[in-house]
């Protein structure tokens, strides 16, 4: 049996996926136009990891969850107002860039250093959670690099399920080609899990959780250190959003079947 885990979730913010994103060139490299004005959300991949952490914490008494988040302090604060009413965690914010154009090595180095600086963290109980992918940092390499810097050998990526066995070991389902899962067993902490979508629904808002979280979230944000993120020698030749083609035609006299047929033909072209 365990005395509970120390789960550190790495998760930052991305622009609300409902926004239209427009890459621009700035003197310091590519960026999104008016990114600070756009609404932000917790990276959906990291959000799954956080919900999985909260779920595991609810089943293993004594577990503590930290959320390590690298991003502009003002935007982190906005996102915490939504996230902090859903699950219990202690925020460890770092005031830095959450740009999708950041170098994965530099981001991983900053995350690993921040995790190592968490007071009272017990490596023998440590589980590092994060998103396998990211809605903005699409390289899919950051969590692996974090694990390497923390010298965590048991790493799993594309995780959909984590089950604690009776002997304390973990059974892990990782996504593999063909829509199947690879099943692994890991002895226990320390381990790192890059989550895919998991199986959990978004937790409900809970005012009591929010009240408790905010007693630590806002002071943590006020104390957050501002750390510039090194570019790691990364150089972008160009940046563009995924190509999309929008063609609007107003029709008033077609049936749903006819419209569907026309759309299918249009896609086929």
């Amino acid at each position: 049996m365990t005395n509970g885990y120390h789960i550190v979730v790495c998760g930052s913010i991305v622009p609300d996926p409902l926004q239209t994103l427009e890459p621009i060139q700035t003197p310091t490299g590519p960026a999104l136009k008016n990114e600070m004005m756009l609404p932000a959300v917790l990276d959906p991949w990291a959000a799954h990891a956080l919900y999985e952490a909260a779920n595991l914490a609810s089943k293993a008494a004594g577990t503590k969850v930290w959320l390590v988040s690298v991003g502009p302090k003002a935007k982190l604060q906005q996102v915490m107002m939504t996230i902090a009413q859903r699950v219990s965690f202690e925020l460890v914010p770092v005031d830095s860039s959450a740009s999708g154009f950041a170098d994965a090595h530099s981001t991983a180095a900053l995350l690993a250093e921040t995790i190592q600086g968490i007071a009272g963290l017990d490596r023998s109980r440590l589980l590092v959670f994060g998103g396998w992918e990211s809605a903005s940092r699409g390289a899919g390499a950051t969590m692996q690099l974090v694990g390497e810097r923390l010298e965590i050998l048991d790493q799993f990526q594309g995780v959909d399920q984590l089950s604690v066995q009776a002997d304390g070991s973990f059974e892990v389902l990782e996504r593999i080609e063909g829509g199947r899962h690879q099943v692994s067993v890991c002895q226990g902490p320390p381990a790192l899990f890059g989550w895919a979508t998991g199986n959990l629904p978004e937790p409900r808002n809970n005012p009591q959780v929010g009240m408790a979280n905010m007693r630590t979230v806002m002071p943590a944000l006020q104390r957050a250190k501002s750390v510039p993120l090194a570019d790691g020698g990364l150089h972008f030749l160009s940046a563009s959003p995924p190509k999309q083609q929008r063609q609007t035609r107003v029709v008033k006299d077609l049936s749903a079947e006819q419209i569907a047929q026309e759309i299918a033909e249009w896609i086929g072209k």
Partner: protein
Amino acid sequence: MTVDIACVGFGPAMGGFLTMLSRCLLNADGSVRLESAMSPGLPLQVICYERGDGLGFGVSGAVTRARGIRSSFPGVDLTEIPMAAAVKKEKLVYLLDPTRASRRSLAFKAADRVLRSFGFLFGLKHDAFELPYTPLFMKKHDGLVLSLGQFNQWVSDQVAASGMVQIWPGMPVAGPLIEGDAVAGVRLADQGTDLQGHPQTGFTPGMDLRAALTVVGDGPVGAVGRKIDAQLGMPPEHGSREWALGMKMVVELRDDSGLEPGTVLHTIGFPEPEIFGFLYVHPDRLASVGIFVPSWFRSPVRTAYRYLQHFMLHPYLWRYLEGGTLKSWGAKSLQESGRHGEPFLAGNGYARIGEGSGSTNVLAGSGVDEAWTTGVQLAEAVIELAEQKRAFTRENLEGSYVRRRRESWVDRESKIAVDSRNGFQQGVVTGMIGMAVAGLTGGRVTPAARPAPSHLPTLEEGYGSRISPAELKQMQEECAAKGTPLHDRIMDRCGWPQIPMDGKLLISHQDALLMGGGVQAAPGYANHVSFRRPELCGACETKLCVEMCSGQAITRGEEGVPTFDREKCVYCGACLWNCAADGDGAQGNIEFKAGAGGLHSALN
């Protein structure tokens, strides 16, 4: 759960309240100044719930004199707020009808004819006449052009960063906890339900949040304010009978549009005489452009989106907007009754602030600054009462909050404005003359009576002179069969030109929802719009709720009963006051509850 102060709705009024209160909870040395009765030793425990997914979502662009806002931020350059600009140029413009399809009265037709015939004398250009001056009561010359989304975001960032109050977006409040004649807090919405509200997996009943003071700032269509009005009543002769739907777009202008940030245009005359329009220019080539469709526009197929497109296409505006790109879109109901719609401002355990408290000045067309100021006034009152350890009773709140409000410029100016719009129920010309006279005489001369809104005309009464009854009936039947609104057919038939879609700014209504910020509805909440007595909807001829629905979320359904799709609802509340089931629109057949989700754009 128990707190000292529970707040509902985050808009300008709540921004003012929380800004002022959060600054005074502690002394300069960090000790507690206003102690919590619920948690002794701690400052007042204050929590605010906002139904929208973000604190800057789903609100509108505005021009405001910002007198109250400025006084709350001495020494702060408010033009540093994203999308804010000082007003530099302001014009009132009469737009003629270039389409010849507008429902113009004889007076308007005559005005158009005179202007067209003698345009060279009046400086008529681009089918528009720029009035030589803007009446003083309308002027915002010393004010600011704001994006309310960005303004609310800016305010909430500062309030939340203080750590003194908690603000939670994405959490609808179902209603007040009313005990006798007192409000004892609020009940949050149930979570984990199906669309009909039946419990599903993960059901969490709405939590009761008890509070010594409930601050109601949930706007004119908010569930808490309306339930308090329904259960505790309104002052005699008061009621929210006059409304308007404001619909707007934020447009990225082309490089050479020639519009300077801080430019403000108010328009009258087109697309219909009753519909007022505006164009406000923000920095970075962004402009807010929109229209107000009022309840006194007595068309049985009144609508907003298509009229907004025709408005933008007016030659006077299109020369600026052509080549622009839609960045955001939104709609909102405005309470246009002003002081006539003022509820009881305070009662045992509660106080009302902002637009839902009747603070909008209907003569000046100004609501943001007034709303902000009412929030500040309540904060000052709460500080006074908390320092004196006095309870939040009706008597104490009236002696502190209501007294401050009555002694302020907000109240003085609302008295001038109170009857200024009475004339609109009798016609646009009468209404405009009434406004002008009220404004120029400081409210001493106004249209005497405030007539009750008359019944909306039937389709035949409204369009019988242009379309034969048989054809009208055929149109109705075809639209009913296809489940489409009727206004497009009628407007086409009345000569309104087709919209030349360009895929950037002139786009379909549904594309506006997708490209203009996106609409989202989190799962696990019940539908917030339902139809109380379906048989009344079945018998309703006009189905104005369908025509006026800003997001096309309400559509014609089987057997004439509309259907509601919450994934398209922008929570504008137009259905609430456009339901003609009981004739006056005040309490129709539509149940409009607190709902989650809505627009996801902070540029509005």
